[in-house]
């Protein structure tokens, strides 16, 4: 195995009718990632249910209730690998609580595969999936025009759908869109190219997944290092050691770099970059490292190191964000919540609720309450300043979750802009 194999996280969006499960099943089956005992288990269940063919969707239905009711409740993660890359698929259910589940799975994805039935073309749900992908800032979109076998593998039909979709995608700011005609049922252009789509010259789905460039998905220029944990061994050997542990969320840092500690604004110089495997001269996102500094400065978890010369993040106690409400209990504007942003947790309240977006029509509606699956524009006040970038610039420092202190549930996900 080559030393440069990478990890690609992607999600699939589409309903069962679009052939989503069949597509995932085909991808796993044709890349030889389904094990015999898994296959025999789902074959048995399919037979028990009186199905003519093996239902590949059963592979992802992990819970008893799901198997009993024939529904998918929650995001399931599946893993497969080719000699070129490792893949994590976030498989989201297609119906109820769709927004909540898709936002959750999309938050860590590099790429989304949006499925379309070639007979039906761009539908309301295609728009919804694309809107959510753009909202969560998934960097790459693949439009998989499935069931090409049902339209006689017509290039004209494919071109028509692609033209319509590209106009819509551009409106949403989705720029990196690749369209593939395929038939998950027959296996055309999924793993193998098949013999029916000779007019299509682009990569098959798996080839695209193996080759899409993801190195630049994280912000590579502006160094961001939220302090997670201060390491003070206080042993004989490491008596004076004071290391700041964390993961580089964006950019890179080198020994000797001048850095600013936020929110205090104090500056100092990086003395050493430590890891268990030895000292480094330079470290980059998303490495987890330990930094030691030239000066003794009061620093604790929740502070952020940035490189002094780069674009500074904002340090504010009030900001606007797009919020996805995830909880069954609606937003209560009179209450205080907790916001967890990078490694800092602060009390917060919602000072304004500007509007709610209808995920199907993209129309804006006034709102004074938020219910589960609502997407809204809000203003938030926090008790302590947060150090943040706009979500469009940096997913890690532009995102936050909202926690209800009474129940400790995660009730919302937010993107600062």
């Amino acid at each position, binding site marked *: *195995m*080559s*030393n*440069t*194999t*990478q*990890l690609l996280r992607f999600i699939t969006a589409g309903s069962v009718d679009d052939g989503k499960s069949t597509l995932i099943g085909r991808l796993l089956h044709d890349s030889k990632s389904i*094990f*015999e*005992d898994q296959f025999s288990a789902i074959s048995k*269940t399919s037979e028990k249910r009186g199905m003519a063919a093996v239902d590949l969707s059963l592979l*992802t*239905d*992990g*819970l*008893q*209730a799901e198997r009993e009711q024939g529904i998918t*409740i*929650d*995001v*399931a*993660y*599946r*893993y497969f*690998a080719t000699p*070129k890359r490792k893949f*994590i698929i976030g498989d989201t259910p297609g119906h109820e609580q769709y927004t909540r589940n898709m936002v*959750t799975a999309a*938050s*860590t994805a590099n790429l989304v595969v949006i499925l379309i039935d070639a007979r039906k073309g761009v539908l309301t749900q295609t728009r919804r999936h694309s809107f959510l992908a753009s909202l969560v800032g998934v960097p*790459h979109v693949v439009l998989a025009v499935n069931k090409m076998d049902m339209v006689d593998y017509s290039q004209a039909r494919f071109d028509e759908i692609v033209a319509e979709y590209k106009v819509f995608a551009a409106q949403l700011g989705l720029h*990196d*869109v690749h369209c593939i005609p395929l038939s998950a049922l027959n296996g055309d252009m999924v793993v193998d190219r098949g013999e029916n789509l000779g007019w299509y010259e682009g990569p098959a789905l798996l080839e*695209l997944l193996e*080759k*899409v460039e993801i*190195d630049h998905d994280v912000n590579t220029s502006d160094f961001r290092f939220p302090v997670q*944990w201060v*390491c003070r*061994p206080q*042993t004989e050997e490491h008596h004076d050691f004071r290391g700041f*542990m964390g993961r580089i969320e964006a950019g890179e840092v080198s020994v000797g770099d001048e850095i600013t500690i936020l929110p205090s604004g104090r500056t100092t110089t990086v003395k050493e970059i430590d890891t*268990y*495997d030895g000292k480094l001269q330079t470290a*980059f996102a*998303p*490495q*987890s490292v330990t930094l030691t500094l030239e000066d003794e400065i009061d620093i604790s978890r929740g502070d952020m190191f940035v490189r002094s010369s780069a674009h500074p993040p904002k340090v504010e106690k009030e900001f606007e964000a797009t919020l996805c409400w995830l909880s069954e209990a609606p937003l209560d504007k009179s209450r205080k919540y907790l916001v*967890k*942003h*990078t*490694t800092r947790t602060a009390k917060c309240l919602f000072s304004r609720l500007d509007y709610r977006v209808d995920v199907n029509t993209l129309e804006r509606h006034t709102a004074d309450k938020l219910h589960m699956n609502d997407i809204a524009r809000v203003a938030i006040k926090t008790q302590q300043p947060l150090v943040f970038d706009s979500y469009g610039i940096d997913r*890690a420092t532009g*995102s*936050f*979750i909202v926690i209800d202190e009474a129940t*400790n*549930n*995660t009730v919302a*996900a937010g993107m600062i802009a």
Partner: protein
Amino acid sequence: MKLVEDNLRKHTFTHLDALESESIHIMREVAAECKNPALLFSGGKDSIVMLRLAEKAFRPAKFPFPLVHIDTEHNFPEVIACRDKLAADLGERLIVRSLEDSIKRGSIVIKDENKPRNPFQSVTLLETIAEFGFDACLGGARRDEEKARAKERIFSFRDEFGQWDPKNQRPELWDTYNTRVHPGENIRVFPISNWTEMDIWEYIGREKLHIPNIYFAHEREVIRRGGNVIPVSHLVQPKPGEKVEIATVRFRTVGDMTCTAPVESTARTVDEIIVETAATRITERGATRMDDQTSDASMELRKKEGYF
């Protein structure tokens, strides 16, 4: 969309580096946000990987949590020896609580000494959590192991009865983890959720980790029972009519001796195991865990009762 040409790949940050960094980040979140965490350590390969990740997360300091083993007393002696040696070499505190203690207390009633004890591990685990007041337990479970696990969060909330409610899990976004619990509740944390069996073996090879020798091919007395190859031990003796044979086998998992089956193999090195793992057509648990074959939902039911 920009595509990478194979010969132009220049970065050296591998998928193992990405997984390792994610796991270190998770462990540090636990250390920073949980009041009294513990790391569940059995001496098996996944928990040995967890120890290396903890070293990477916290050295040069000591681990900010003790190691805890819930001993069924049905473990392979080689695994227990490895557990004790690793904990001693690292200089970290190891707490061992045995199912025998719960049996003496009467909280576990065993009908047959030689039956698998995995279902009872939850009882002793919950008693140990209560004894020490742990609010977070780090465990080495992976999502690729089992279909109920594929649905579980990295930070998996348990109520005051230690129960998992799969239909009512906290949404988990980005890598911003909600670690909060009320007194009496706890969180199970799985830093290697996104690792696969293959990743584990590649990491063991890369890090040159010491693992119990029964993971490598060796000759062993076995009997064949109901389609499974079962190791003969003081707990499993041949029934009348069963023949003891010598087979060349290795273990893909090392659990309760009465229900962990070895696979026939000649792989004597990590590299040879990686080759076999790439070629195998049977899942890890499917090949080795007889207790998971009893029903589609065995693991889910155990987890709901408090199993890790």
